């Protein structure tokens, strides 16, 4: 028996089972059309997460080609909805939508992201070390970690983003010393409870931000906040919604 629907499907569903537009000859991958005759998509890949090149893997130059189909390797990879590289594994449409929205990642993508992050950090360290050969990597990491944790200005004007972070960290190290390094503020108990000045500051800032938000504080303020069961008086300044702590004491 003649099956019109089956014939229509065989005629219209081609490359990897996707529907082919009769007039253009392009395969519909949901998000994009693919020209199987050229082995490429007609529009660049997109991502819900802002990034320079969506799903780029620095080790694989083909991933930088926004028009390529599965990094030009159709024998080992498939692409069920037009922008879902699943490394040969079959996933549902919804998985692919969530994947393309950046909600979930394959293990390989997670590893690639981690690798990219490590490469960026290494490059940042190398740029900084070139101009600051006396700094050890351990010192650099410590100060960058502090710069990430604490708000503050970039005090030192040196080349490279790592160096900028370090400058901010140096300013923040001064701030920690100012607030916690002296006996006058009487905050030794808070440091003991949190194990370090950094953690104590983090908790203090968090508590202060909550009170500032709750009370709608703007400008210079003095507030008593509860941190780990202790009443701490914080003096600061709220500028453009950002809390800048000047000092604190018990």
């Amino acid at each position, binding site marked *: 028996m003649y099956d019109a629907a089956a014939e229509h499907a065989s005629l219209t569903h081609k490359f990897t089972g996707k529907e082919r537009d009769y007039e253009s000859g392009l395969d519909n991958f949901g998000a994009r059309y693919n020209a199987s005759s050229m082995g490429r998509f007609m529009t660049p890949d997109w991502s819900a997460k802002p990034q320079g090149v969506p799903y780029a893997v620095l080790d694989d130059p083909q991933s930088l080609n926004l028009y390529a189909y599965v990094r030009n390797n159709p024998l080992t990879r498939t692409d069920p909805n037009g922008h879902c590289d699943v490394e040969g594994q079959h996933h549902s449409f919804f998985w692919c939508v969530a994947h393309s929205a950046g909600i979930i990642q394959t293990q390989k993508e997670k590893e690639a992201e981690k690798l990219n992050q490590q490469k960026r950090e290494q490059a940042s360290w190398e740029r900084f070390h070139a101009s600051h050969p006396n700094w050890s990597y351990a010192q650099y990491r410590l100060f960058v970690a502090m710069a990430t944790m604490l708000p503050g*200005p970039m*005090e030192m004007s040196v080349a490279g983003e790592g160096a900028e972070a370090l400058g901010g960290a140096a300013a923040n190290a*001064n701030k920690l*010393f100012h607030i916690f390094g*002296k006996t006058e503020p009487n905050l030794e108990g808070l440091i003991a409870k949190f194990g370090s000045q950094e953690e104590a500051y983090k908790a203090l800032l968090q508590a202060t931000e909550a009170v500032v938000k709750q009370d709608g504080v703007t400008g210079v303020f*003095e507030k008593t906040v509860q941190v780990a069961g202790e009443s701490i008086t914080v003096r600061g300044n709220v*500028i453009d919604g950002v809390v*800048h702590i000047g*000092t604190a*004491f018990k």
Partner: protein
Amino acid sequence: MSNLTSLENQVLQKLLQGDDEALGVLRDQASHAEVSSREATGVGFFTKFSLPPGAPRLAGRPTFKLGDVNGKADNLKRGLGFLLYVDDGAISTLEGYTYDEPWPDEVLGLTLTYSAGDNRDLSWAKGLIHKK
């Protein structure tokens, strides 16, 4: 006090201004005190005072912090703040601090104001000093 910096002197005068007997005692202490140490933290300073033996102390020897003076400066966009530690009835430490900015080599164009505005809220200051 002879060895105060100009900034410390201005701030102390502002902090101890007002028609109150206790503030008068603190002004008297300040005029006889010496700077025993001065430490810059990079984002502020701590200046410690020492009083001569027998200097008058506040009745009841209270401990509190006086800090209703705020500062503005040409080279500190977020301003600066101050705190005078009074321990056991005597001035002990003056603290100056910025709000997430490095303390400059020289504070330019300093202007001082009270938290309450041009005039001090003296009742607040008295309440703090005479708090039981």
